[in-house]
């Protein structure tokens, strides 16, 4: 188990980057879907 902390840090970093990107995508999706819903109601 030599140099394990570096491996662990890298492993966590990969997941954190993917997780943050996924959150950012989900947030942008929900904002746009809300906007579409609002605009469709305005057009009715």
């Amino acid at each position, binding site marked *: 188990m030599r140099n394990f902390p570096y*491996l662990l840090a*890298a492993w966590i970093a990969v997941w954190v*980057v993917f997780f943050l990107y996924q959150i950012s995508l989900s947030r942008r999706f929900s904002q746009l879907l809300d906007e579409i819903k609002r605009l469709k109601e305005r057009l009715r």
Partner: protein
Amino acid sequence: MLGTSEPMNRRIISSLIVSSLMCAAGYAALFIAPDERTMHDAQRIFYFHLPSWLAMFLALFVSVFGNISYLFTRKQAYDWLGVAGAELGVVCCTIGLVTGPLWGKPAWGIWWTWDARLTTTFLLWLLYIAYLLLRSMVEEADRRARISAVFGIFAFLDVPLVYVSNRFWRTQHPTPVFFGGPNAGVDPTMGKVVLLCFAAMVAVMTVLLLNRYHLERLRCEVSLLTSEAESHDLDRQSRLAREHV
């Protein structure tokens, strides 16, 4: 995650494939790949470091394909592909830039050095961040697509430079283990594990790329609906004014 129009079973199947590939890759990298004699566990960073770079190259190829195709055809779909590839390229590049120093410290004794490979890679990251910032600063869709396509092609010029940097110049970064000449190569098990990790990374990247593309399509739908709603409001106001008169 994706819009409501996408069939549910397709989403489930793709999630299952990606999750199983990621689990298999993680298991193989940690438990199947042989231990390296000098770096020990730190060498296992190789199994996410190298695939993240390969996935980045792939994403940036998709991006530049979108950029060039947009300039020739002026189809918005290519602009969406360009931005999706660029954003995923930045994500993969970030992973590479974070995992690199975490491997460099135990292997070289330093976190970072400004050698040709590391500097050109950092420059690439900055160029694509600039590409994304540039897009956020231009309001009009056609102008934004045109300017960012040109800038995207310019940014991509750094990609071959990154690739050849440790082949042409002496760098702290080691020479490539794949396609790096007669002395290059890895243990066959390590090679298989890295291939599996690359497949997992590409699977994740593909799912995220499709989501990002879909997001851009939705953004276009929003701008169309906004202009439609504005003209609808104007019609209603003029009708009301006429009725009033």
